[in-house]
């Protein structure tokens, strides 16, 4: 029996010890009418060899396309050592470190993770992770409402230049509590969120500031932070953590003290694309806000003999203690992904991360130049961007993407559904993993496809 070690002799001895003659007797408290006579609708069991073959065939069918898609998930080089260590059984098959003495490895690692993430964000405190960037933004919004001094303001300023899937996730999660998301428009020339746009909007508990935003544009984070503060609102940064190796971190935004909360998706730090997950959400805040923070937090302390040790701390915020009064319902988070990211950040260091970020920008800038030189193709926005940019094509995007996929290229993200006002707009990404030859291949393919209908 796969994964079940009981021999017939074991089973008999166990039944004898219990004092029953048949295993079925152990289910005698379940009303017989409810018993399922036979498992139906599930295929018969198969060997590891057979399933391995099936999975290899299916993985192969998914192909190995040249990827210029970003839109919230980015292909970066992950050193081999990262996953070699992260999938060690002692990390992979442990659980939440409830028994601190038997979990010092995971606990010290999370403490190191919190140290790295706060350093990268320029913030005081980090939790031990949330599910993903979108749900982390929802938790940040709920946290900001708890912190806001205005009391009854149940509104969040949410820029249209935030990832549409993030906005929808936040809506799903906060809707039940009667919280409204007030859309902040973007500037049609720069693709940025103008601080002046807040002037026309009703007060809110917090402003969400993306950096870079969904279009890849660099927001004027200082002006936005100061404008939000002037209206008595908190500031929630939602950022690409890799970009923070080069860009001004949320803790330094604005004239006074930086953002209140910084969150985002940790995927660019050592997590493969993997069809969408598992990734992890990070959440950092200023120290005065820590008691409203959701999720696990690890602290350093000492044991009875005065030796350094690590433990889960500030737990009265959490559901297993506070139940209906907890800061969030979150229990399990994304521990293994944090393990991965911590090893990744330790391997690359500040300089390695900065190089990956700068190379990504350089590749994207080079690609933008090449593609915008094609007839009928132009850059939609002006001004600085990170590693993504918006192109305007001379005709509808969807069929162009299909033609590119036919030659093994994922050409980018079609913006026409989420942003119809942008016309034939395509969001394109390049990271350090794209070589000059890759860029040339994309440019040539797009030229051919667009040329075909010229």
């Amino acid at each position: 029996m796969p994964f079940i070690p009981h021999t017939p002799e074991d089973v008999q001895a166990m039944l004898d010890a219990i004092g029953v003659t048949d295993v079925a007797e152990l289910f005698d408290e379940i009303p017989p009418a409810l018993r399922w006579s036979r498992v139906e609708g599930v295929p018969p069991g198969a060997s590891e060899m057979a399933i391995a073959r099936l999975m290899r065939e299916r993985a192969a069918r998914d192909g190995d396309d040249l990827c210029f898609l970003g839109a919230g998930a980015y292909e970066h080089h992950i050193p081999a050592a990262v996953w070699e260590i992260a999938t060690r059984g002692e990390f992979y098959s442990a659980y939440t470190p409830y028994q601190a003495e038997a979990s010092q490895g995971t606990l010290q690692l999370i403490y190191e993770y919190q140290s790295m993430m706060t350093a990268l964000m320029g913030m005081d405190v980090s939790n031990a992770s949330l599910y993903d960037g979108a749900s982390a933004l929802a938790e940040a919004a709920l946290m900001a409402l708890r912190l806001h001094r205005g009391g009854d303001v149940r509104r969040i300023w949410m820029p249209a230049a935030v990832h549409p899937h993030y906005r929808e996730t936040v809506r799903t999660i906060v809707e039940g509590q009667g919280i409204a998301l007030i859309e902040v428009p973007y500037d049609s020339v720069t693709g940025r969120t103008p601080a002046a746009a807040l002037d026309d909007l009703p007060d809110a508990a917090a402003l969400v500031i993306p950096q870079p935003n969904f279009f890849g544009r660099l927001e004027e984070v200082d002006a936005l932070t100061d404008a939000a503060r002037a209206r008595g609102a908190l500031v929630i940064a939602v950022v690409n953590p890799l970009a923070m190796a080069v860009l001004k971190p949320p803790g330094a935004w604005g004239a006074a003290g930086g953002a209140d909360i910084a969150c985002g998706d940790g995927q660019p730090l050592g997590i493969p694309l993997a069809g969408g997950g598992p990734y992890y959400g990070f959440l950092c805040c200023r120290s005065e806000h820590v008691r409203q923070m959701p999720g696990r937090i690890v602290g350093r302390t000492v044991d009875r003999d005065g030796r350094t040790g690590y433990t889960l701390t500030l737990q009265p915020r959490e559901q297993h203690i506070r139940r209906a009064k907890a800061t969030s319902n979150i229990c399990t988070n994304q521990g293994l992904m944090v393990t991965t990211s911590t090893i990744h950040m330790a391997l690359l260091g500040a300089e390695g991360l900065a190089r990956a970020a700068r190379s990504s920008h350089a590749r994207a800038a080079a690609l933008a130049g090449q593609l915008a030189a094609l007839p009928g193709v132009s850059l939609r926005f002006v001004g600085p961007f990170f590693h993504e940019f918006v192109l305007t094509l001379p005709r509808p995007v969807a069929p162009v993407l299909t033609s590119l996929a036919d030659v093994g290229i994922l050409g980018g993200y079609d913006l026409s559904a989420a942003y119809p006002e942008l016309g034939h707009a395509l969001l394109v990404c390049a990271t350090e993993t794209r070589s000059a030859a890759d860029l040339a291949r994309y440019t040539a393919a797009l030229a051919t496809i667009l040329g075909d209908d010229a």
Partner: protein
Amino acid sequence: MEKATAQVRASVSPPLIFEQGRPGRRAMAQAPSVVEPWEDLPAHLRRNAPPALPEVSEMQVVRHYTRLSQRNFSIDTQFYPLGSCTMKYNPRACNTLAMLPGFLNRHPLAPAARGQGFLACLYELQEILQAVTGMQAVSLTPMAGAQGELAGMAMIRAYHRARGDLARTEVLVPNAAHGTNPATAVMCGFQVREIPTDASGDVDFAALEAALGPRTAAIMLTNPSTLGVFERRIGEIAERVHAAGGLLYYDGANLNAILGQVRPGDMGFDVVHVNLHKTFATPHGGGGPGAGAVGVGERLRPFLPIPYVLKEGERYRWAERADCPQSIGRLSAFMGNAGVLLRAYVYARLLGAEGMARVGTYATLSANYLLARLREMGFEPAYPERRASHEFTLTLKGLTARTGVTALDVAKRLLDYDFHAPTVYFPQLVPECLLIEPTETESKQDLDRFVAAMAAILVEAQEAPERLREAPHHLPVRRLDEVRAAREPDLRWQAPIDSLA
């Protein structure tokens, strides 16, 4: 006499990775070899000083994190009878096959045509979960049990609102429930009404009937309950709740007990979540990632969270908003914890129909055996008249009264014997509670070793209680000063002042 056998031994905590570095030493072999220009980056958007990250070599990193891993208990190294967490063996094939390059390199927004293999796995997993839960449709997107709960309660809210039934603002939750249940109900805008438990461990039926009414939106139940017993009157409960206009939410935390034996759909539940990291053996990863797929009956089908997978002819595609305009919406940026779903799929195919039936059977056999043996040794079950499900509760209140030794002391001493501790002090209504879940993947011989350790600890409790109060003695650290950790929070490493000069 010293019987401790801990494999994870006492040793000084390794220095933090930050403290092992030297300025200018870098692991950058794996970073781009050149520093590329970024000419148009405005000065006011630029970072002034690099973040204080470690400056270490690749070998230092590998050695440091390998050593940290050795300071953990895990399923791969210890028996881990943590009640309510289903710490069963995580088959290695599931990891290997989910990490095939074709799956790992697939961008989440790649067109469905470029991911038919991946989508086929998810579609079939939806069907398998639908079958074993007895529901009508499944969405795999929730990223953990608690997010599955949120999806379920948000669907219940949407259902009542769609009918114009706005008065249903209350959710009933038994007092033995996981803390996530009441916390979730509140996140979805409901008020929580707690229902007591009767002396035999079932929901107090009279109290339940008294609480039902036009304000009842739903009841959240775990069955078998967190007390490790099957809720015997579930049929009547479902009848009464439905008659009152409410719906039933099934918390799948304990599905392992009944997998292949009883289906939540047949018990009358309208929505369930399945913790794939428990019942379907995906790794717990030191605290996640999990996956909390939700299944629903006909009434809640229109409200399922997106995306989920549809099959049209031989082609698979995502169901998006246009397919289900009443959906509660997205719960993640992409497709939940896709890699966890692939692992669960491989596990489900390896087990198959007959393997699923075995899970519930052997999990129940092992729990009842362990209960019988511990009882024989003098431990007191919290519900002595009841069968164990896949787990059971002991109360140490008698031992505590006699010796002063608490459930926490016994838990800590077990670590010295190289066993992970059971869940302690949960459910809160059982005094000095140990919640023990052996799972089907432990052998009788390992269960017997655990019984022997518990018996030895019982003797120690009477003869040398201070040894238990001081335990653990042989782990990397002894009991930690948690008061200090909370009062003087030290939550990150900070560069010493002189190194900044």
